[in-house]
């Protein structure tokens, strides 16, 4: 016996959660682009989206965020800190790869300095993941030893029913159980079958890739230049990536008032490592692409014991020149370690 949430009860659920003070967020397609956005009713969700164009990352680590500000008036100088938001949210219909991405980044944001903006949002957000029954040619979670129904980073996992009328409910954390208490009477007991999970073929041998990357001799391999020759150096892959987390501080304003902001930054940009002197230790695009791969599969796991990739495939899916992690790791799989 399992608990079941029927789709026709979803409108009630959304209303209940909203009444309880939660902002309800889900996969939404607006105009020509999809993302996780605020919904007001069940009809606003689009569960047909294989994966929203923009990852879940921006809801926890926005592309631009004010940190502090100042105003100066003659003798008066005032500074103000922007506190982390206290909004309570529920994301209904996250994908496993996106939820996993958040869990992958948790140790990073809590390492030498605990990022309150990240953790406040993490603590105040319930993540309800829907297991994937559809995948596209770019999905690669299985190559990262994850799966269409991975529970990593999720508070509740829903499995679509075979009859397409709702979901099997698996509560995973106290945060998830708490949110589902609000709708406990809307759930049913049942023995319906879950729909088969999406088939995501394994595209490369991760262990072989990691072994090759760990060999210091391969740092200067000509492979890097060859594989990245067509990279145009935009930040699309890094900004859409659910785990890429680099940022930059920017001061905007003048002598009298201003704001310090935390903005997304990308290792694909030449400016990323440019020194004041003009020297750039990563002066070529191939050095930048190598950094991105090395960071995800060598340096990050070296420090946090987890690869910085959840296999969503956005890097390739939206790359203007059809590059991405899949092609690079597929190529590395065929090289001698």
């Amino acid at each position: 016996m399992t608990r079941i949430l029927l789709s026709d009860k979803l409108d009630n659920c959304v209303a209940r959660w909203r009444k309880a003070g939660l902002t309800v967020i889900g996969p939404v397609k607006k105009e020509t682009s999809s993302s996780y956005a605020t919904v007001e009713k069940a009809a606003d969700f689009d569960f047909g989206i294989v994966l929203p164009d923009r990852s879940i990352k921006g809801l926890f680590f926005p592309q631009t965020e004010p940190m502090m500000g100042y105003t100066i008036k003659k003798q008066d100088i005032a500074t103000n800190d922007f506190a982390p938001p206290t909004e309570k949210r529920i994301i209904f219909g996250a994908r496993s790869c996106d939820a996993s991405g958040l869990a992958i980044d948790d140790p990073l944001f809590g390492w030498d300095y605990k990022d309150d903006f990240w953790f406040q949002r993490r603590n105040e957000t319930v993540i309800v993941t829907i297991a994937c029954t559809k995948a596209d040619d770019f999905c690669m979670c299985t190559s990262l030893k994850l799966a269409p129904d991975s529970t990593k980073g999720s508070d509740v996992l829903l499995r679509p029913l075979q009859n397409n009328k709702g979901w099997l409910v698996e509560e995973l954390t106290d945060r998830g159980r708490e949110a589902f208490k609000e709708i406990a009477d809307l759930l049913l007991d049942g023995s319906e079958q879950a729909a088969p999970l999406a088939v995501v073929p394994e595209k490369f041998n991760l262990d072989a890739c990691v072994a090759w990357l760990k060999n210091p001799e391969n740092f200067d391999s000509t492979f890097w230049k060859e594989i990245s020759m067509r990279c145009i150096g935009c930040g699309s892959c890094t900004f859409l990536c659910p785990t890429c987390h680099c940022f930059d501080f920017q001061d905007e304003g003048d002598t009298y008032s201003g704001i310090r902001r935390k903005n997304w930054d990308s290792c694909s940009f030449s400016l990323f490592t440019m020194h004041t002197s003009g020297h750039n230790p990563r002066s070529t695009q191939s050095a930048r692409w190598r950094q991105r791969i090395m960071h995800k599969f060598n340096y990050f796991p070296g420090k946090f014991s987890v690869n910085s990739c959840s296999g969503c495939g956005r890097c390739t899916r939206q790359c203007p020149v059809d590059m991405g992690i899949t092609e690079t790791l597929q190529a590395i799989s065929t090289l001698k370690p």
Partner: protein
Amino acid sequence: MSIQEQYKKRVRELLSSGAVKMVIGYQAGTTADRRRPLFIRTPEEAEKLVLDSACIANLSGYLVTEGLLSDEKSVGIFLRPDGIRSINILAAEAQLNPEQVVILGFDGNDKEVTALQGEKARDFSAIIASIKEHAPEAPRNPQLEQIEKMSPKERFAFWQAEFSRCIKCYACRQACPMCYCRRCIVDSNQPQWVNTSSHTLGNLEWNVVRAFHLSGRCVGCGNCDRACPVNIPLRLINAKMAGEVLGAFDHFAGMSETQEPVLASFKKDDSETFIL
């Protein structure tokens, strides 16, 4: 022999005779409908070449990769007419020597491609002249017409909503053959001319600055529009500006390798209604 096979043969000849050191073309991509840029340096590598209606991207931007043409050797490149116009602009703006560019020209629709005769950009001037001639009666983008009918207030709201998705990844800039600056104005930080933040003002600033920089230079290849990971209809802005420049100055970007940039030149009969 299919056009693809004819061109493979031509690529092999160009490389084995030493006429070019490299050919930039297309190869198969991750999915059946995708093509990726391909850099061919040996006659054998020509086998990977794909040439069909899915070869859409304007590859000319790769020619201004730092150092590629500095040894004065030639490079072959597959280009549609819009790409050939890009070569003319890059030459006119002193970014490359058109003598070093061997063009493998092609054109076509969404079903098939046809070969274009010629080798140097100037060999295609008749084709480009005919495109300009037919520009006024070419079918206009229905969405653009819809936007033109909006009131200024509605139009501003429309673009603000579109730009609100911008994440400032600069894929539009990087994919554009005309955005060749070694250091873009938005990357200049002493002083910081343009906000780097991707907020309402920052996104508007970036996209408006880019629209003006491309006025009279954009050939409408659509690289920016296709590159945008959040699908902002960037080509509409550039198409609008190209139409304005054509109407006001009879300037059609990329006519010849000596064409003067419209916003950097003055003619006595230029319309001055906006000044007087």
